[in-house]
């Protein structure tokens, strides 16, 4: 790890100005990707602006059929929240199966979304559940938030403050884990919502994405057998030592079926 200046502001405004004053600063949330990258000397920010001291960014509230989660709420807190378990059990279960215990006690929803790892779980959750991301500047719909691999609609100094999830009729997330890292080799989030079925896929391609063909088939007939008829395109699938394109495409289908079955 290289040296850096550390800031721990008490408000979102102070955080933004601390980053604005830095040469090449980064916001630090749970640090589960950033710190590991810095330890390997693959990242060398001049300043770290720690968001952990900002009380406004923490906490979970439920109102009007939607769950709002503060950006620095940890995965463990989401998983253990009776409110989340009650309103969107699939989201609580998903958070409870991220990484390992240490990761879940440090990693945050805001950090995960801002990083937008192509194999992370939360990007699939916001897409499938039609979440809204609130920042210090604006509100962003999930479909607009996810842009590309490690790329989001966030501006350089923009801070996620909370994420709001409308509760679906039912939802389920099925993750097939990469055996070594236990990130999603393929993860499929299926949600029955007031506006129809939404399906999101993570791990399979360069970025989490909706599955329009799966959605169309499931809007027609919400059953595992409906998934069988869908052709999953192999040409954009990730190919690495853990899985080739055909295997990943197959897993999209199998995980989608399992998720549909779990939705009941």
């Amino acid at each position, binding site marked *: 790890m*290289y040296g850096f200046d550390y800031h721990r502001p008490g408000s979102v405004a102070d955080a933004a100005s601390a980053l604005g004053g830095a040469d090449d600063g980064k916001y630090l949330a749970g640090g589960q990707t950033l710190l590991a990258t810095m330890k*390997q000397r693959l990242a060398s920010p001049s300043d770290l602006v720690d968001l952990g001291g900002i009380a406004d960014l923490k906490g979970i509230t439920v109102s009007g059929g939607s769950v709002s989660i503060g950006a620095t709420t940890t995965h463990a807190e989401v998983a253990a929240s009776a409110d989340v378990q009650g309103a969107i059990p699939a989201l609580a279960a998903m958070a409870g199966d991220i990484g390992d215990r240490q990761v879940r006690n440090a990693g945050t929803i805001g950090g995960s979304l801002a990083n937008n790892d192509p194999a992370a779980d939360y990007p699939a959750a916001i897409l499938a559940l039609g979440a809204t991301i609130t920042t210090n500047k604006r509100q962003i719909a999930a479909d607009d938030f996810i842009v590309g691999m490690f790329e989001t609609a966030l501006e350089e100094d923009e801070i996620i403050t909370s994420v709001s999830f409308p509760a679906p009729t039912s939802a389920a997330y099925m993750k097939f884990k990469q*055996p*070594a890292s236990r990130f999603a080799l393929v993860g499929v989030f299926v949600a029955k919502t007031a506006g129809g079925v939404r399906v999101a896929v993570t791990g399979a391609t360069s970025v989490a994405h909706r599955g329009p063909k799966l959605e169309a088939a499931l809007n027609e007939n919400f059953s595992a057998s409906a998934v069988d008829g869908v052709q999953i395109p192999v040409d954009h699938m990730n190919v690495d*030592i853990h*899985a080739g394109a055909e*295997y990943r495409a197959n897993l999209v289908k199998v995980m989608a079926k399992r998720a549909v079955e779990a939705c009941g």
Partner: protein
Amino acid sequence: MTETGIGAAVRRTEDQRFLTGNGNYTDDINVFGQTYAAFVRSPHAHAKINGINSTAAAAADGVVAILTGEELAADGVGPLICGWNIAGKNGVEAHNSPVHHALAMGKVNYVGDHVALVVAETQAQADSAAEMVEVDYEELPAVIGTGKALNHATTIHEEAPGNMCYDWEIGDASATDAAFANAAHTTTIEIVNNRVIPNAMEPRACLAQFNKGTGDWTLHVTSQNPHVHRLVMSAFNGVAPEHKLRVIAPDVGGGFGSKIFIYAEEVVCTWATRKVGRPIKWTAKRSESFLCDAHGRDHVSKAELALDADGKFLGLRVNTKANLGSYLSTFASAVPTYMYATLLAGTYTTPAIYCDVQGVFTNTAPVDAYRGAGRPEATYLLERVVETAAREMNIDPADLRRRNYIQPDAFPYQTPVVHQYDIGDYGASLDKACDMADVGGFAARRADSESRGKRRGLGYSSYIEACGIAPSAAVGALGGGVGLWESADIRFNATGSVTVMTGTHNHGQGHETAFAQVISEKLGVPIENIEIVEGDTDKGPFGMGTYGSRSIAVGGSAIVKAADKIVEKGKKIAAHCLEAAEDDIEFAGGNFTVAGTDKVMNIAEVAFTAYVPHNYPEGVEPGLHEQAFYDPLNFSFPAGVHICEVEIDPTTGETEIVNYTAVDDFGTIINPMIVEGQVHGGIGQGVGQAMLEGANYDENGQLVTGSYMDYTMPRADNLPNFNVGTTSTPSPLNPLGVKGAGEAGAIASPPAVINAITDACGGAMIDMPATQEKVWQACQAAE
């Protein structure tokens, strides 16, 4: 059996300090004036070095010194060595042995190869300065792929034309050819034994110090064999005279073979500490462990088995290409030859065997002994070809093995490939394993799985291994450069407690407990009064270390020999004190008794008398302190049968081990709890190799699986509850009847797992690691 003697499940005394964070590992040790080392490592698999410019790095904050191979050579430090010469086919007397500089001299041969040493006041300063050293590399094409190295367009070492280290053979080629000519059936397989990375929990580390006052060096190092480290570093590397170099291997967190070897880092740091006048600490980062610890396995083989119409094995013919990596590690040459092909008879009466092995160089990390070292490769190949033959001939795989077993009355049994097995009852292990695994109920369980859309398979592995390495004369005759005896030193203290020093090394095996049990049994001393001391060349007698499941068979035998001497001397003292003839003194349970009387003297009293010899036999030396060296008469041959049962989801290839049964014959067992733990760990490691682990280099020689993000270690949820049992035919060739148990699980389990998976997938060939993707593909093909 006493509560703490042989056969008792005594809790491991060393675990108290390990589990409470009070272990004392090399990196825990810090000394005044200590500096920190970072190695500049090659980012290329194969390159010429046209120059090294360390001017800017030398001026960086905190830098104490930057040293290169030229300075190492100028000080007369010798290259790293390989201690086992392999003579080849056609009278070739020596293998090709390229010079292995501890720091590169004009060329690097694998990613991670050592280019320069940076010494600085802090670790961060050393790491930063190492990044600033400018190395002018001229890249060369990389030789990658075990099967592609021979006669590759690129030659790595001019001393090894065609990238060949040796072309070696064993067995009788013409007898084997004749067996095939008469065969009713021949089974042929092509098989890969995947390369694995050891991943000991504690990374390698060293702390080198030079005392200007005495001219002594002290090296703390993560070693399985500190005396061997000292011997090699003095005799061959010449960094310090043997009597001036103290090597201490304190608590060591696992080795699996990877800490046997004498690596560049400790040689360079021991040389450099005197040069810079400061102690130097080096601790591997995990990514350095991946790149630079000696890897294991990595064979590509073809095996042919000739059978008669009844399934009796007539002959076995094997060709193996063994990847030795970029240079020969300390014992690398012996692993794919004498540690491997001598086990190809397995537990069977195969009368004719021929195997030839080409050891090849590639631009990858050196490959050397890894838990089992050659025996897992032999067992995997043999048990895969046997299982395949059973399927091809439609013979029950257990029955085929039974038809070919060496029978209990056939021992000692001379195999066609060097070894003479001492004792065994393989059928007993097979019967017990089949019973414990409920093989009879398998068909019903398979039907149940199929009714749920799953596939189910059952696989056997009937293994044998050669442990207790080894009779020194035999080692010498086969090209080994060392003797493989062991030593023990038993020192009674005047108050009756005992300090036992031995040349083996405990890095997870439980020696502090098991050896104390042997002493407690033999000398009747309470176990809490016994201290086992290992790992310090200034304390214990010269010993050869721990590997090859040798500690109890060889080291334990040395302890018994020394204990016998203690009893012998104690009888003289007791006879004098009890006013009896020496021949009338009996010793049992810690008491010297005059036969047929109640006159008794406890060994603690005898010890006190020996140190306060006021009333003492004439001509007997004071003190109760005996030493013994034990050179084994033969290897020992643990054997057994493992049965694995898997259930597979054909839609994803997810493979669950639903039942795993291990029945092992380890002869006498000192501590059944420790042995069961060894079996569990070994199976875990073998399941890792079979299903999860695989070192993967890309065509440019970059290690793709260089972290835990991509290299899959087995975890608890990959493993079932193990169903463990034993049979016992005590070895007649050592005083305890022991055989060794440290490696059996890792040797036996890979073929059991793969035989089960392939059974579930309709007999398809699947190479290790049988990843979910490969299993899914096999299921697709089978449907």
